């Protein structure tokens, strides 16, 4: 390729886009969310005749201010990180996985089964690996169903995953209630292999909190997801399909195959989240342990802007809200947090397209 007389002027550089620009689009929606949450929180607190400042201080003290509280935050954030990563992974391919509830439950169930089936003396690392693989596989199977229905029949994954939630949870309930439960309860017997140590076992200040080493797995999975999305060819293809399916098709990428992979792995990631409760906390599978974490995963993905590390931060945010609700319960009912959650999601969902629109037209005006 001979350079024409025009070349030579351009010295290639590799300066990433000005951080301000990227930060604007990425950070403004979550900040809007925070602001809205604060305002809304103020209103709710005042309606109970309490002082917002005092309540917020109480919230922070109860969550990040003491080891037990922080441990609880860590525990809750771990599950949310898994479901958030799952949803964001699907969204990166342009697919909406609402099935987190059932995928998480299925994964926990599989992990519990493995924990019961494996012999008592199994070395922890081996048992952990097997349980994790089982959890991921179970979640992946649940995720593969909408994937198949979409690629083969064009069935929209939102409705299919929602419907499947009910079906799978009912199925699991049948297993437990019918066959596998410890009498008088709705949970399986305690597992004897693959038990994850609690944080409290390592640092006694965390005594009483549910935080366990599953959080390390969460961080590893987040890193793996980041690596896959941004450093591998599969990730390049996946993001291309999510951003511009027509160009991806033109570039030789099989959109159907990417979709299949994305939803299946999304389910698998959510499934792995089951180990937090099953292996690290109660050591059995309990009907209903997932409750709400799947849907909150959507909020976490949204606020985390679908980026693995953003998801971790967002998971902490929502976990803090949740635990904070308990901490301030004496002053304001913890139900206030349920309201805040909904408000934050709507605020962020509304802010994202609006902010993008405003920024784009501002930029266009300055370029013209």
């Amino acid at each position: 390729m001979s350079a024409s007389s025009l070349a030579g002027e351009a010295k290639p550089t590799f300066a990433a886009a000005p951080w301000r620009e990227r930060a604007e689009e990425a950070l403004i929606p979550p900040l809007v969310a925070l602001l809205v949450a604060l305002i809304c929180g103020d209103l709710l607190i005042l309606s109970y005749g309490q002082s917002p400042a005092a309540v917020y201080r109480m919230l922070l003290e109860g969550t990040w201010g003491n080891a037990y509280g922080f441990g609880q935050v860590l525990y809750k954030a771990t599950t949310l990180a898994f479901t958030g990563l799952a949803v964001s992974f699907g969204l990166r391919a342009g697919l909406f996985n609402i099935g987190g509830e059932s995928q998480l439950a299925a994964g926990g169930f599989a992990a519990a089964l493995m924990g019961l089936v494996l012999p008592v003396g199994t070395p922890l690392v081996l048992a952990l690996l097997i349980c994790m693989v089982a959890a991921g596989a179970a979640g992946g199977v649940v995720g593969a169903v909408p994937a198949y229905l979409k690629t083969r029949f064009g069935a929209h994954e939102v409705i299919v995953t929602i419907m499947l939630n009910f079906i799978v949870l009912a199925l699991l309930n049948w297993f437990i209630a019918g066959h596998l439960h410890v009498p008088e309860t709705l949970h399986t017997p305690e597992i004897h292999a693959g038990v994850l140590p609690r944080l409290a076992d390592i640092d006694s200040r965390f005594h009483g909190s549910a935080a366990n080493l599953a959080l390390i797995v969460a961080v590893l999975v987040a890193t793996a997801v980041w690596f896959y999305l941004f450093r591998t060819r599969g990730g390049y293809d996946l993001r291309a399909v999510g951003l511009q399916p027509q160009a991806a098709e033109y570039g030789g990428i099989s959109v159907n195959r990417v979709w299949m992979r994305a939803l299946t792995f999304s389910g698998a990631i959510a499934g792995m989240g089951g180990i937090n409760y099953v292996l690290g906390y109660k050591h059995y599978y309990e009907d209903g342990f997932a409750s709400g974490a799947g849907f909150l995963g959507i909020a976490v993905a949204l606020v985390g802007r679908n980026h693995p590390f953003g998801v971790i931060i967002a998971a902490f945010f929502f976990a803090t809200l949740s635990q904070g609700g308990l901490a301030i319960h004496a002053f304001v009912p913890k139900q206030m947090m349920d309201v805040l959650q909904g408000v934050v999601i709507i605020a962020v969902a509304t802010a994202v397209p609006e902010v993008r629109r405003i920024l784009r037209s501002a930029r266009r005006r300055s370029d013209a």
Partner: protein
Amino acid sequence: MSETPAIRMEGIEKSFGAVRANRGASLEVMPGEIHALVGENGAGKSTLMRMLGGLMKPDAGRVEVFGRDVTGWSTGEAISAGIGIVHQHFMLVPTLSVAENLVLGCEPKTRGVVLDYKRASDDVRKLSTETGLVIAPERLISDLSVGEAQRVEILKVLFRGARILVLDEPTAVLSPPEVRELWAVLRRLRDKGDTIVLITHRLDEVVEISSAITVMRAGQTVARVKTSETTPAEIARLMVGREVSLSAGKRVQPSGRTGSQPNQGLEVRNLSVMGSRGIRVIDDVSFSVKPGEILGIAGVEGNGQTELIEALAGLRSTSAGEILIDGNDITRRSVAKRHDAGLSHIPEDRLRRALILEYTVANNLILGVQKYFSRNGVMDRDRVKENAARAITSFDIRPPNALLAARALSGGNQQKVVVAREMGRGFSVLLASQPTRGVDVGAIEFIHQQLLNARAQGKAILLVSAELNEVLALSDRIAVMYRGKFATVLPSAEASEDVLGEYMIGTKKGSAA
């Protein structure tokens, strides 16, 4: 001028961001005439009519309807004043019936709440018989043929009392007998006293039906003539001529290197592609492009060029025929396999097909060949950077920052990214579709040079362009596409704007070579 013009538009300016769609355009239509508004894609005809119809407001200029200043009015006002626009892409709800589509927004009611279907049906039937646009009111839009659907679109504007009708490319989707039916309808309406503006680029039809013609080019009005006082060739020249002649008539001498290559180039045999509603958009086309030659396809857009390229690229399925690259039959192969077989493609839809706007320049430069930039599944970032640096330097891509999102680049630089990518890898056949559209003059010359270099290296290039000068300057042989077929294939020495123009507008129909 003793009569008030039905439409008078003067000095119309309209820009969309950096694009000036209308630059002081003007139009004058007398009542009761069938007036053709002609020009190529992007000449600004549709934009001008949108302002008449109230869908947009002009940035400057004046719009008058029967002497009344109506500049900047709304759709509702335009409809009430009797303007009816029949869109190119039908605005009909497919799941509803003819009558339902017609009364939508002005539904007849009994007892204030119930939709009076009987009256709607009767009204439609009455109008239908009056105008000769026969169509049964109960039929579902999705069951109608294209010609029938168009009748409904016309009925829709007449139903609302339109006296001035604007038809946007009405014959683009019609078969010849349907076109004749449409002419009968339009003549009947004109005889009733309605005024008709026909937006089109099919000049063989224009001379049949219109009494006056306005020619637009690059946002401006360049001529206004009586149909009887001009010739199709003259109109074609006005339509496609350029202010700046790109290659100033300089012809490239054939390289004479054809035939001595191990590669065999591109061969297409009896290719047919079905469009919507059972019409063949590519109709039994056969041709070949030898290594070291550029075959240019001229023709006004909408005659099947887009579909041909898509079918060759693997983005559209074919109903008959074979495609061979270097002797390998790739007709059933996927896009990726076609890349492997030696095919490169510069798409005409840069923003949707050729680039992922949110990806960096560096990442866009490897789209389609990303497997060569990864090892064991992991992206080799150094090689990607190297590749980007090389492309940026060779093609003078500005700004020269490989990590900028493609969205931040100008159209010309975006195109350079695409060209750098498609021509920077090993290929034997290149499909170049509108390669210099939206590109500044300096870059145009550069891209042309790249195409010629590739030709010199023995590549087979299929060039599709709406810019006749570009096709003339670069091609060894030139084909003209008209209604899904090759109207002719000529060696470039025998081709000129005049000769090609007549094939392009359909007044001359030869046999494809």
